Structure formats: structure tokens, C-alpha cells
């Protein structure tokens, strides 16, 4: 690093970024904290001249709300299910990709495709695939008309069709669909990172292992995974952070109702909760956002602690 003769010069370089960040990032954060502690704050009534007490009222209301717990459990459940599944799957795919020559680039491209899509748009495609009854009653002589392709496949293999996302579907069926979609969505990034990690592992480790007659499984568990552990930790941590912000994928499948017909908000998440409150109860939304931030913070800390213990070198 060079000791500059003009320390102010750095600030000139930084000025545009800092000014914009102050206005569009820092101020909103400050404002959020402010709103969170003004009890019952809403921007409409604030315009109307309402005065607010300073306190924890918003937090109390959020925590006592009957659906808060379900939002939290939904969020956690999706995190706990999708992060390991997508990580393991991505690891397998990355390792396999790394082990082949022909078609490698083609397959790599395909696996990255979901990354360049709009999650709401493709969510609509998934919803259509998992549909039980069509969007309307069609021309056949029964009520259940358009079964989605997934149920067709299940029936083809002799199973019975499952009501995945329509009215009367079970919670676990909904969760299954969400897990499939979220994992599908999360794979590209993870595969990319892990494949990059794999390719940066010195080939000599594998040569050395080969000379020593190491079995494939041992190579995988004793060499590949430990050497990949920083990248694994990275995808797990970002996976958790992203998982706690899960929202648009659920909108993609279930629409703004965040649940099947007849039971809206069943799959609501923390961010969904914030968005709901954001419309009219900005104080509550801010409080919920701070709670979410706190949770992410704690989970990330735990993750970091664990990964420090588990990642090698």
C-alpha cells in the first residue's frame, strides 16, 4: 500500500459512492430503526399528525401475533431443509461435473440456467407443473381435469396423484413443492462456487491419493470435502442468509396469498410478514425486520463458529 501524500484524494474517489449510500442506504436504515421504536407507527397516520410513544410496543405486537410463530417456523423449516439438500446435491453435481471431460461445458451451462431467471416467472411454471386441478374446469367429464405433469409422472409409475398446492392440500405437500423449487433455484450458484473450488484444488493431491491407492469414496470424504470446506462453508452461510429471506419463490408458486386456496398465509415467511406489515404498519414491519436481522445475525455467528471448527486450514 502506498502512503498517499494527499489523504483527501481517496475521499474524492469515494465521494459519489458515499453520498449515494448515505442517502439511499444509511438513511433508510436509520429511519427503519426509528420507526421500529415508535409504537404503532404508520406513515399514513404520521402524516395525519399522530404522535407516538417511544418503546418496544411494535416488537411486542409482532412477537405476540398468532401467525408470527408460523412465519418463523416456515422460514426455519425451509432453511433447514433446503440448505443441506441443495448443498449436498450441488456438491455431488459439482464433483461429477469435475470428473468428466466431454459435455462438461454444456452440462455446466445447463446447470447454471436457473440463475438467469426471474423467480416469480419460473415459479408460475412450477405451479403449473405441480397443479392438481387445472386453473378452470375443462371439457372432460370429471371434476379433476388438468393434472400437472408431476402427478402424471407419479401416476405413470403407479402412484396416486398428490394434491400438491391446491385447496385442501396438506402442509407437508406444500412444503415439499417449496423445497423442490427452492433447491432448484439455489443449485446454480452453489454448483458454480463448488465447481470453482474443485477446479482450484491442486491436481497433485489427487495424483498423490491415486498413487497411494485411495478409494474413490475416501478421496471424496478425506480430500475433496475437506479441501472444499471453505467453499462449502460459504455456500452454507449464504444459503442460510438467503433462506431466511425466502419470499419471492413462495409468491412464485402460491401467489401473493402465500398459501393454498382456503388457507392463505399458511406458508408465510419472515420477509412475507414484513411485506404484509409494510403496507400499513411500517412500525411493525421495521420491528419485524430488526428481529429478522437479529436472527440472521445469530445464525450467521453460529455458522461461522461451527465452520471455523470444521473447515480445515
Amino acid at each position, binding site marked *: 500500500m502506498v502512503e498517499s501524500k494527499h489523504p483527501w484524494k481517496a475521499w474524492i474517489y469515494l465521494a459519489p459512492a458515499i453520498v449515494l449510500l448515505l442517502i439511499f442506504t444509511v438513511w433508510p*436504515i*436509520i*429511519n*427503519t*430503526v*426509528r420507526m421500529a*421504536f415508535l409504537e*404503532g407507527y*404508520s*406513515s*399514513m*397516520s*404520521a*402524516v*395525519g*399528525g*399522530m*404522535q407516538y410513544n*417511544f418503546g418496544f410496543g411494535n416488537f411486542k*405486537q409482532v412477537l405476540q*401475533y*398468532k*401467525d408470527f410463530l408460523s412465519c418463523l417456523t416456515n422460514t426455519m423449516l425451509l432453511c433447514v431443509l433446503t440448505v443441506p439438500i441443495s448443498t449436498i446435491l450441488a456438491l455431488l453435481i459439482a464433483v461429477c461435473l469435475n470428473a468428466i471431460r466431454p459435455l462438461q461445458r454444456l452440462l455446466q451451462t445447463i446447470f447454471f440456467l436457473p440463475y438467469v431467471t426471474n423467480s416469480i416467472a419460473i415459479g408460475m411454471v412450477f405451479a403449473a407443473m405441480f397443479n392438481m*386441478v*387445472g*386453473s*378452470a*374446469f*375443462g*371439457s*372432460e*367429464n*370429471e*371434476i379433476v*381435469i388438468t393434472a400437472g405433469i408431476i402427478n402424471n409422472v407419479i401416476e405413470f409409475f403407479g402412484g396416486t396423484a398428490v394434491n400438491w398446492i*391446491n*385447496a*385442501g392440500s396438506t402442509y407437508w405437500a406444500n412444503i415439499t413443492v417449496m423445497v423442490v423449487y427452492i433447491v432448484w433455484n439455489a443449485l446454480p450458484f452453489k454448483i458454480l462456487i463448488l465447481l470453482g473450488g474443485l477446479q482450484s484444488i491442486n491436481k497433485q493431491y489427487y495424483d498423490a491419493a491415486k498413487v497411494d491407492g485411495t478409494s474413490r469414496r475416501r478421496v471424496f470424504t478425506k480430500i475433496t470435502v475437506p479441501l472444499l470446506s471453505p467453499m462449502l462453508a460459504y455456500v452454507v452461510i449464504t444459503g442460510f442468509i438467503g433462506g431466511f429471506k425466502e419470499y419471492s419463490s413462495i409468491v412464485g408458486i402460491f401467489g401473493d396469498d402465500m398459501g393454498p*386456496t*382456503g*388457507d*392463505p398465509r399458511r406458508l408465510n415467511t419472515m420477509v412475507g410478514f414484513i411485506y404484509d406489515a409494510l*403496507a*400499513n*404498519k411500517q412500525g411493525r414491519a421495521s420491528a419485524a425486520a430488526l428481529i429478522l*436481522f437479529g436472527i440472521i*445475525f445469530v445464525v*450467521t*455467528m453460529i455458522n*461461522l463458529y461451527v465452520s471455523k471448527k470444521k473447515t480445515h486450514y
Partner: protein
Amino acid sequence: MKKILLATLLLLALCFNCVSMVACNNSNVAPEFEMPEVGYDGSEVTINFYHTMGANLREVLDAYIVEFNKLYPNIHINHQQVGSYDDVRDQIKTEITVGNQPHIAYCYPDHVALYNLAKAVVSLDDLIASDLEVTRADGTTETMGLTDEQIADFIQGYYNEGKQFGDGKMYTMPLSKSTEVLYYNKTFFEANNLTPPTTWDEMEALCEKIRQIDPTCIPLGYDSEANWFITMCEQYGSPYTSATGEHFLFDNDTNRNFVARFREWHQKNYVTTKELSGGYTSDLFKAQDGTRSYMSIGSSAGATHQRPDKVNDAYPFEVGITTIPQVDPANPKVISQGPSLCIFKKANQQEVIASWLFVKFLTTSVEFQAEFSMVSGYVPVIKSVGQNEVYKNEFLDKANGGDFIAALSAKVCLEQEAAYYTSPAFNGSSTARDQVGLLMQKCLSADANGDVAAMIKKAFEDAVAECKYQAD
């Protein structure tokens, strides 16, 4: 990474400190409207008007803006289709927080309740009562307010909707209205010697009969679960909501009972709804084969959607329209819906007055009301439209269950003018509406695990709790 986390904490702590410094309130509230002594002074103003009109309705509006400008050339109307009703509400909501709201907007009562949290809507009472004379560009004059004849010309149910806000003040003017009507397959009814039901008891019997005739059918489709619930409350005279005091009163035995009854209907495949069938029930009503229905309760403004597509240049069946079933046919209740207009407070009182003049023009002009009704399928809000020659001759008199189905629907609506009710509007009234709609969906379709009463009880309690949380 650890450093980042620490920095984040620091950042938050910093924010917390800042909070006390920026506790000031950015009050963008516009001043209360006060009628200037001169009334409208002819000054040049531009009025922004948010609505949801499609292209065909915008054409009508544009034509009448030209007419209006013949009278008031200095009032420029700048209108904009913002999207759906909810989009209008959301847009204005955010704009109010920065004092940037339009002058006039399409509104539903609950929107106004929301805007009024910010005290943003002009109370119209002073304007309506004003007897100031306004001179128009063509030399004629008009009274600023509404004359007694003008007030009397409004269909009362529609007019009174503007006063549903619990403080006795008038905040909205009805623009065009609709209600729910019962569409039935007249051809089928005549062939099987059936008559349209007037009560819910008759409806139940009728459904049973129709199911015997066509075992794969679902005789009745009811589009809006929420309307169904609220209308039943009105018809039974049981509490739904109140604009003052304890807002959410709908958890009571009467209401649980009718919900339980309709659940049975649903189980017996007598009835379905928009959400439960996955689409507007008109789809079933229009269907020519497969699962179909023979009755559909939907918006009177959607009559053309209830008409089946032509086959070989002829409608496969004729549609009949009648009042929806009642609890007590002697004291009928049908919902009043459709957009009203509200005016927002502005610093420049001339803008408010100009807005009012335009609102008044749209709501009291027979020609506009007639043409708007014919194009939109909505019902005019003033009775004298019925006497308008074009409207009468070219529209109402031609009413039938085929090409002129919209007229038929309008006719039925105009005939039941005394039956319109509106529900109280307050901050949270839309939540109540959403919640009872969901409650209907849930109670009709959910797996009760053997204890229907308990399931329904829980659904009601949840709905009330949700309403209270949202209103809190």
C-alpha cells in the same frame, strides 16, 4: 467476516443513537378545506384524477371532459389509469406520505378510511351545502353545492355509502355502481319447469332437484365469498362490523350457523365459489359439457361474462337475471359496490373546488351517467338516467338474455333500488372483508377432522384475531 458482523452491530448502535435526533415528524398533512368566500374564482388549475378505467371507458371520459371544459376551460383534467383498485390505493397511499396525492381518485370506502388516517380526504358536506353561485364560461350559472332535487335523484343506497365512516360526514360521491345478481340458465329452467329461487330455503330445494336432473353438475356458483358472508349478515340482520367502538362483531351464532349450512351445501356439491373452483364461476355457468352449473351469483357489471359463447351463430342457452335469494323477501338486501370518487385536500383551495365541480359534473350529468353505464355495464347512480331517452330506448327496453344482457342486468339492478346496503368503512374494514372471505373458503372446504363446529369456531376466532391485529 467476524469484522463485518461487529461492524454491523456498530452500525445499528449508531442508528439507534440517531433515532433520538431525527424524532421530528415530517408532517405533510394538507390544510383543512375551507370554502373561500368567492367560491371558484376561475383560476387555472390542473386536476389529477386516478382511476381504473379501461380504454373504452377512457374514451367516454375524454368526450365528457371536452364537454366539461366548455363550461370550465381553465380546469385541466389530467387523468390516468393506475391499474386495479388496489393499485390505485397503494399508489395514493405512498403519495400521501409525501403530500403528492392526486386531486380525485376512484375509491372504495375502505380506501377512504385508510386515507383518512392521514386526514387527507376532503369532507364534502360544506361543498354539498354551499349555495354559492358559480359562473360558467358559457355565461350560465350553477349552484356550487347540490340542490335538493339533485340529492333526491341519487339512488339513496348509493348516495349514503359516502357517509359510512362513523363520523357522520360525507366523504365520497358515487360514480357508477354494481351489485350482485343471480344469473340462471333460463333455457334449462324452462325445460325442466323450474323457477328461480327467491329465498335460500328455495335455493336449497332447487339445488337438490337440479342435482337429480344432472348428477355431475354443481348447481350454483357464488363468485365472491366475502360478499356472500356480508350479504348474509345483512339479510339476517346479524352484526358484521361497526364503524365505531368494537369494530369486529361477526363472530356470532347466526353467522356460524349459516356458514355451517353452506358448508353442507358445498359438501353435497350444491355450490362452489370463485376461489374454491379456481376461476370465476361464470366459467362453469357458461360451460357446455363436463362439470357445469345452472346458476351463478356474480357482479351485475359482469353480465357479458355470464353469457355463453355463440355456437353456430346462436347462443346455446338464454340467460335469466334476477335478484339474489333472500332470507326475508319482503325486506331484501343486496350489496352495493363499484367505484366512488373522493377528493383530496390541497393547499390551494381552488384546486379542491375545481375538483368538486368536476366530480359533481360526472355524478350528476345524466348524459355521462347514461353513456358510462351503457359502455361499462355498471348501473347509473341517478334515477333520472332511467328517463333518458337514449338510455331507455337503446338500452333498457332492448334488455334480453342474449345480445342485450348488460341492459337486462342494469334493469334488474334499477328495479331493486331500495335493497342496497353498504357496510361501515373504517381503518381495518377491508381486513374484515378479506378475513370473512377467507373464513368462508376455509369453512366450506377444510377437512374438519370430524368436528365441524370446532373447526368453524376456530376459523371465526382466528379471523377476528387477525382483524384486531391488523387494526391495532
